[in-house]
């Protein structure tokens, strides 16, 4: 088929023009079928719409982009050793999650159900890192099944802070990694790894638990708790969680990191 003939057929497929006598029977059949497929496909996609809450999420993301200078890509490489460390903790977390899933009898029902971890975001720059492999795929599948209405955000640190009423600047300059943990009921808690001590976060309630440094925050409607693990500070943020639930998350991460 010549280019001009193919172009003419393509033009006809995209139009509602009547078919003329210059077309062969085979060409006319092709055009009729492909027109029908095109129209049906377009109509099928009309049923696909943005999930509830996504418009608000986009507005928040644009607000953030508007209020911050464009991130320097170079800063992504500032913490290679730290990222390696957090990645090893992430791997430990995955192992624990999978173990719990495989051996629910060895964990309480709450633990077994709770820590479904979506490790899509290891760095604040979403272009730079995504975990690979079967573990992540399995967890992503779980995430798909349990997707809730709390936005999941590539720039979790800043936006999670914003969603719980905090200034995004609180974590923006010091975030080295972030995770999102999804509970089967759809609630999500962001876990942000920041490069500053717990004491410097400005949380309202610092305390110790089992000899370890913790803090939680309640100002501005925050739902945040933090602890130090292997030299990093882990902050759990989830507006639908109580402070105690957030502390439980951090305790579980600490246990996972120790194994």
């Amino acid at each position, binding site marked *: 088929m010549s*280019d001009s003939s*193919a*172009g003419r057929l*393509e033009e006809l*497929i*995209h139009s509602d023009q009547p078919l003329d006598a210059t077309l062969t029977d085979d060409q006319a*059949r*092709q055009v*009729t*079928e*492909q*027109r*029908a*497929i*095109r*129209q*049906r*496909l*377009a*109509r*099928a*996609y009309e*049923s*696909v*719409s*943005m*999930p509830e809450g*996504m*418009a608000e*999420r*986009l507005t928040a*993301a*644009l607000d953030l*982009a*508007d209020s911050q200078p*464009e991130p320097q890509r170079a800063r992504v490489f500032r913490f290679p050793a730290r990222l390696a460390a957090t990645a090893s903790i992430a791997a430990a977390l995955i192992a624990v999650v999978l173990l719990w899933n495989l051996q629910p009898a060895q964990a309480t029902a709450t633990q077994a159900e709770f820590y479904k971890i*979506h490790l*899509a975001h290891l760095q604040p720059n*979403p*272009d*730079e*890192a*995504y975990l*690979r492999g079967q573990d992540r795929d399995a967890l*992503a599948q779980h*995430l*798909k099944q349990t*997707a809730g209405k709390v*936005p*999941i*955000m*590539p720039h979790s640190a800043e936006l999670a802070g914003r969603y719980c009423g905090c200034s995004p600047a609180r974590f923006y300059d010091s975030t080295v990694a972030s995770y999102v943990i999804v509970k089967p009921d759809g609630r999500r808690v962001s876990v942000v790894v920041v490069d500053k001590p717990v004491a410097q976060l400005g949380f309202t309630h610092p305390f110790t638990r089992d000899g370890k440094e913790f803090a939680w925050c309640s100002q501005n409607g925050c739902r945040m708790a933090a602890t130090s693990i292997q030299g990093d500070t882990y902050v759990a943020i989830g507006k639908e969680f109580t402070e105690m639930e957030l502390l439980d998350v951090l305790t579980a991460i600490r246990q996972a990191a120790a194994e």
Partner: protein
Amino acid sequence: MADRKEFEAEALPHATALYRAAMAMCRRPALAEDLVQTTLVKALRRFGTFRSGSNCKAWLMRILHNTWVDYLRHRKVVGPTVPVEEQLLAGDDGQDETHWSDPHDLLENFSDEQVIQALAELPDEQRITLFLSDVEDLSQEEIAEITGVAVGTVKSRTSRARGVMREKLHQYAVEMGLAGRREF
């Protein structure tokens, strides 16, 4: 920073189209959301380079496509690829010898999910090309710019995708008892 109000007026009306395109690309709602968000943030930051009066949807689609390709590269899932032209030379074009007596009536038997699934089963580049062509109604020139290939490649991908799409739908029709193996 670009004028936020102007950006919102130009770009945000295309957010749903971006989400649909992202779904066609990655087929995972959570990832599609991330891709759209990243696309719009990038677009806001680059809005100064957008030529007023040009096709904003095509411009956004190009950023989305680049974001998706970057994502694939980072996941290292882009394995060795075979140019579509080679596939065309190597195999049939997906057209069988059957014909549909009434395509519109036949396609009404499929659910939206089935039609979307048929598209989802196409190879990445064919799927994206056909989506941009048939769902978003973009020109072959615009699709070439979005996907970073020659217009001729878009034409061959479109042609190939149409054939495969028809074949997929035909298989569904056979499975549903709406068509015979050879003709309906």
